[in-house]
């Protein structure tokens, strides 16, 4: 802003008594933004994790072969593998080796999982060239002919409850952000009304001197936007610091799912937009409240 214009704006701003402001709003907005950024981060990270999970599981299936006779099971596995590799619907078919299965069972069975006498199903990991129930049906039909004990599970299907849960978390986070934004607007409305009451005398004088509603509303709008800006900066920075701390701790856990629940550049950009959006929301709510209230005055 140029010198004289800035000076004029500053002097106009002083028409409202700074000492009589509702400074509590700064801290309320800070808390709101802190919670909103955390809520939004939870939603964005969960959505990213859900997307990563989906992209990993779509088009993947597992074939289980469980025969009463281990020799027959092994023979069926060989035939199944050959049949699958010959299908255009199958991009890749790999036998999961015994050691890998023992490692998967270890958390439940301990070292007994590696016992060669333990009857363990033979597993084939499939990567399908095309998605959908029709593909799975063709795979099942092909396997039925060569390996009657084979059972085909789409990985997508058994991870569906997890995906549904992640979708629910995203929805809850979204609702949380909307509720916090609504609560913030309500706080601004209350602060603007309190400001009107506190400055009623000054506003009356301004009206009598020819001030328009927009001029009066602009005074409050600027002031509330400034307070909201300070609060938003404090709240957002605190939330981002907390997110960085949580990210660092999650990285140490080495969990694959937590690793996928990262924000990514677009997520961080979205979080950075939140304080700006809240300041705009506060300014608009203040302007709307003040102009509506002034309409009832001559």
């Amino acid at each position: 802003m140029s010198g004289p214009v800035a000076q004029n704006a500053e002097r106009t701003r002083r028409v409202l008594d700074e000492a009589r402001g509702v400074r509590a709003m700064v801290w309320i907005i800070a808390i709101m933004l802190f919670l909103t950024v955390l809520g939004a981060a939870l939603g964005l990270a969960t959505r990213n994790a859900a997307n990563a999970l989906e992209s990993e599981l779509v088009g993947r299936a597992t074939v289980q072969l469980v025969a009463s006779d281990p020799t027959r099971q092994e023979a069926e596995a060989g035939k199944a593998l050959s049949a699958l590799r010959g299908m255009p619907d199958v991009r890749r078919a790999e036998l999961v080796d015994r050691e890998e299965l023992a490692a998967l069972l270890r958390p439940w069975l301990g070292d007994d999982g590696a016992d060669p006498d333990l009857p363990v199903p033979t597993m084939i990991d499939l990567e399908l060239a095309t998605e959908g129930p029709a593909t799975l049906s063709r795979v099942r039909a092909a396997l039925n002919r060569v390996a009657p004990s084979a059972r085909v599970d789409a990985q997508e299907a058994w991870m569906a409850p997890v995906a549904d849960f992640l979708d629910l978390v995203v929805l809850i986070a979204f609702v949380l952000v909307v509720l916090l934004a609504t609560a913030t607007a309500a706080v601004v409305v209350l602060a603007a009304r309190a400001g009107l009451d506190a400055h009623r005398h000054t506003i009356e004088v301004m009206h009598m001197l020819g001030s328009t509603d927009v001029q009066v509303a602009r005074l409050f709008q600027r002031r509330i936007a400034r307070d909201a800006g300070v609060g938003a900066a404090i709240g957002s920075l605190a939330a981002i610091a907390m997110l960085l701390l949580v990210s660092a701790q999650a990285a140490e856990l080495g969990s694959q799912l937590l690793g996928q629940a990262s924000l990514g550049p677009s997520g961080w950009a979205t979080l950075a937009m939140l304080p700006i959006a809240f300041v705009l929301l506060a300014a608009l709510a203040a302007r709307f409240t003040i102009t509506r209230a002034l309409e009832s005055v001559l």
Partner: protein
Amino acid sequence: MANIVQFENVGLRYGNGPETLSDISFALAPGSFYFLTGASGAGKTSLLRLLYLSQRPSRGIIRLFGEDAVTMPRGRLPGFRRRIGVVFQDFRLVPHLSAADNVALPLRIAGMPEAEIADPVSEMLAWVGLADQADAKPETLSGGEQQRVAIARAVIARPEMLVADEPTGNVDPEMADRLLLLFDSLNRLGTTVVVATHDIQLMQRVSGAQMMRLVKGRLQDPTGTLRHPPAREPA
């Protein structure tokens, strides 16, 4: 030239109470100077409130600057208020602003650039004898000084009409003379002036000023000159 103010059978009632003003009819010619008198409770302040658009009448017609002020949309009122300077009986200074900032308020509201505000404000404060109190807050000023700040604020934008409610009530006779001279100077420049006062001596000091007398909410106009005022000769 058309009258600047025209009241026809105006009545004012607050809530469900009796009429505070009844059947008020008068016209103010541009550049005229009027004293509004009457006992306390006669309705002087209510009449002034109608004049400076702080109140709409309960009935009757008010034309201000040639336009119907009764049905005028709310959004147009600020533009008309900027053409009227008001000295309130209770001063109504903004308490946290300095005397200079109070005086500058009408100019800032009108959007005058800051660089053009300082000179007229200083000049006006000097006019009312408060050049050395420019930075003083109203609470540190005496009643008379606050009144002079209020007067300076009312006249700084060179309004077409000045409405003053007991403007010399809190100042000594010498300052009252000085303020009256200021009003008279403005009037000679074309501003229509309406001053509500009890001060008979004050009324005698302005040559050519006319009198409006309110008795129990009714305007006394036995000769009809208030309804049909003679146009004032330009100074």
